[in-house]
């Protein structure tokens, strides 16, 4: 591990309120628009089950709005905070998140057959959300340091060994989607860190050979069933296939312009399950149509491109790789969630960033944006000649 040098130049010292000229306002505005769209969809998806007053914390819309405000605060706070604090303690954070992933398997809550949450009073905490960020930080730290040259096969294998334990612990929860997100983050980071294609091909070959064993020993029946019904949702129309079938009908029946917010029968007659969480995109598809989906895609593309811009101009390797990891994280969560809703991926319970109802998801997404801002605010300070 590299020694750290304290002291030195102080270009931004004492400028607590400085650096706002480098702050990415586009990113903030886009994320704000996404949250607003999410609030509208949560309103539509929850109006059949919630009929209390609007300004009440039991109203999912109001609750989500409160979390959005908390999230904005967290983003601003984190952006003032040098991301090197995070990479410095990356291994400790990584260790803690491994511990929490083990602990959740032992004492977590089992919902719908998978053990993903701790319940602490009114809030639920999903350790894998935390573990994803910790893994990004550790990978960034590893490849920005002496000994972490991605061009070497040895370093590549070590980095894979960093990811595998987390992915495995998540996979046996079981949470296939999040496990895939872990590997996607790794792939994104090593690609940018300069991996050689030959090495990647070797690893891919090894992975292919191992696949039958994974299928035999590690894939649960429910996962097979979910993949099966994805191929043919009619196989079990009232069980596994139900959600897929209903989301297909919802999305498809929205056609180009949608049926109008709060007018979708699939949503309002409650054919859709969890319409404010995992299947919120189906609500959008049904009620706002292809046009609405394109607006959502445009917002996400702008946001992700702004994230890649951060990686582009980051002052150092650590910042760049952290930014890459976060972009891949957001991209994969978005992609998998929407892919589930349009029947391209088996049902897996990943929320749609910014949109899905759920405080911890929203706050952790804003925390990621805060880290991106932190990298951006300091890119000149760390730029080497």
């Amino acid at each position, binding site marked *: 591990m590299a020694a750290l040098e304290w002291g030195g130049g102080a270009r931004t010292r*004492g400028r*607590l309120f400085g650096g706002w000229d480098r702050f990415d306002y586009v990113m903030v505005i886009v994320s704000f628009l996404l949250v607003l769209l999410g609030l509208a969809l949560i309103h539509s998806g929850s109006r059949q089950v919630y009929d209390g007053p609007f300004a009440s914390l039991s109203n999912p819309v109001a609750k989500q709005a409160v979390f959005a405000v908390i999230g904005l605060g967290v983003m601003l706070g984190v952006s003032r905070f040098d991301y090197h604090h995070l990479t*410095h303690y990356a291994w400790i954070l990584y260790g803690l998140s491994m511990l929490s992933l083990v602990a959740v398997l032992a004492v977590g809550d089992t919902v719908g057959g998978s053990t993903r949450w701790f319940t602490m009073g009114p809030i639920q905490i999903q350790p894998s959300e935390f573990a994803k960020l910790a893994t990004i930080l550790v990978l960034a730290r590893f490849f920005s*340091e002496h000994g972490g040259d991605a061009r070497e096969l040895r370093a590549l294998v070590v980095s894979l060994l960093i990811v595998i334990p987390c992915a495995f612990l998540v996979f046996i929860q079981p949470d296939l989607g999040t496990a895939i997100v872990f590997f996607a983050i790794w792939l994104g980071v090593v*690609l940018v860190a300069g991996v050689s294609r030959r090495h990647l091909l070797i690893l891919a070959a090894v992975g292919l050979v191992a696949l039958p064993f994974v299928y035999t020993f590690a894939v649960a029946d429910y996962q097979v069933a979910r993949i099966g019904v994805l191929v043919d949702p009619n196989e079990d129309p009232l069980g596994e296939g139900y959600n897929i079938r209903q989301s297909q009908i919802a999305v498809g029946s929205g056609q180009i312009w949608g049926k109008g917010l709060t007018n979708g029968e699939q949503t309002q007659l409650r054919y859709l399950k969890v319409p404010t969480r995992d299947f919120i995109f189906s609500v959008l598809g049904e009620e706002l149509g292809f046009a609405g989906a394109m607006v959502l895609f445009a917002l996400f593309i702008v946001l*992700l491109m702004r994230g890649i811009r951060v990686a582009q101009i980051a002052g150092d390797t650590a*910042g760049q790789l952290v930014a890459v990891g976060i972009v891949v994280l957001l991209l994969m969560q978005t992609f998998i969630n929407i892919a589930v809703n349009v029947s391209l991926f088996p049902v897996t319970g990943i929320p749609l960033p910014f949109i899905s109802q759920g405080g911890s998801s929203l706050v952790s997404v804003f925390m990621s944006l805060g880290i991106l801002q932190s990298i951006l605010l300091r890119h000149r300070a760390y730029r080497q000649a």
Partner: protein
Amino acid sequence: MSRLDDNWRASSGPARLRPHGNLFALRAAVVVAFLILGAQLFRMQVVDGEEYARRSRENHITQTTSLAPRGLIVDRNGVPLVRNTSVYVATVLPELLPESEQERYQIYLRLEKLVGVPALEIQAQVKEREAAKQGFIEIEFKKRLDKEQALRLAEAVVDIPGVGMAVRPGREYIATEFSHILGYVGKLDAAEYAALRKEEYAFDEVIGKAGIEARYEKDLRGERGVTSAEQDAQGRLIEAFDSTDAVPGNSVRLALDAGLQSYVSELLTDSLKALGNDELNGDARVAAAVVMDARTGAVLAIVSVPSYDNNIWSAGEARAAELQGLLDDEAGSPLLNKALSNAAPGSTFKLVTAAAALETGRITPATTRNVTSAKLELKGEDGQPFYLDDWRAHGLVDLYRGIAWSSNIYFFQASCGILGESRGLGKNTYDSATILAYYARQFGFDSPTGIDIGGEESGLIPDPAWKARVHKDGTPGDRDWYYGDTCNMGIGQGDVTATPLQVARMTAAVANGGKLLTPHVAAEIVGPDGKIVRKIEPEWKQVPVDPKYLADIRRGMHESVLDGAGALGAVPGIDVAGKTGTAQFIDYKSGDTFEHAWFTGFAPFDNPEIVVTVYFDRGVGGSKAAPVAARIIQYYWENVR
């Protein structure tokens, strides 16, 4: 925070302080990811959108449930008391009818000929449905087709578009004397539907509404079969999915003996007519009898006369007038189960008084009273003369003779005491009443017995607290508890009421040495495969009376039948013990006084097997009820035992 900016810097790491990665791949990944999603969305929403929109409109997966055959109810020997039948319903589905109103009317006319529903009525129903945009919901325009109509319609529907015949499960009860026990089934009402949401009743499913049908609903119902399918708006099957078969309900085997029940029912009906020597009462209008196993509480017969045909509930409009007739018959009130309805128990209650007096030590079996006159004059609480009446001058009676000849004055002495001469059960008249009420409740009075057919009244045991409560708006004179109240209670008169079943249950407790049994009509639940799913086990609680006192009471009852007021309860060759009761009551309509006739007994005396309680609303216990009980015991002995 910012203070530390610039201070964090990797000290070494030669070539990689400057970012060097190629971010093009990442940008490409973002674009490709959304292109994939966009392409799929385009396919679903734009290319196939029309098709999905149609499926959404016509929504989609329908579950058809096949109802399980309901379990049967059989008597102790397996004789079925109810049959499952099919009910044929004529239906029309508006959206499948021809477009032109003229063609439609031709169909309505044909239906009028086939099943007798006026064409205009069908037309009105169809128009109403279509106006409500519910043309896809079937109309049941005739609910119960008779066999001939069903056959004709079944032939005709083949070539009439939109007209159909549905077959629904029905329930047919074989004889009227079981109506009060079995209850009936009917469609769920809104309240039941709300209460039973978790049980997932189908909207056209029937549910037990009373009696055994209601109490054992969970056993009888079985499990629905489910077929799921995707249908279009015309009801055409697009695709059928997996289905599960219905599981028939369990049967309930009763402890009841169908032969005995029918015999008792006929016997009571035939015995309603006034006896020649009873000029006071005239014909009895209603009667009830309970035959119960004295050891287990299993009910062998429980009869209420007059009864009614419980098929009437499912017949709907066809028998509405008849049902109204039953509801209007106040004197006979056939819908009411008289075995579970309140009446003054009269002298049968003296068994409780005897138990209380013996257990508290107020009397011993040797305590005597010389009843020299049928009228005993006392000086009342207010100084006015007060009379205690007996039904005759018994002479010197002890406990046994007191029970055997049902001496009122003996039991006044044992309960309220003879004013100015001896105290009652307690140190004053309040205490005496409270003590007696306590024992009465221990013998199961003043609360439902818990029999498994429901609909029972709880009777009433008055006491000073009760009187103060019900008359709280009255004058102090109304609220007070008097010496006379305690005396009335001691002989089962005044405000005391009890159901024949409560009296039978109390008698069983006396006969079996103090076990207060919970009566039950069902004996066991039998699965469709004939295996016993569960047995209804006897339940009881102990009455706090020394068994030796109960033996003394049994001896008194024995003497009653041997050579006392209950002599007509005797059966040749069987040693019967019993207690008569003749309770005076005032008909609140006419203001005239009549008597209820009671007999409650058990047999055989030395090893009680059954308890028989007979009740007529008008008559004298010893002459009207006792001989009926004797014939019931005889039938039991010869045909059931």
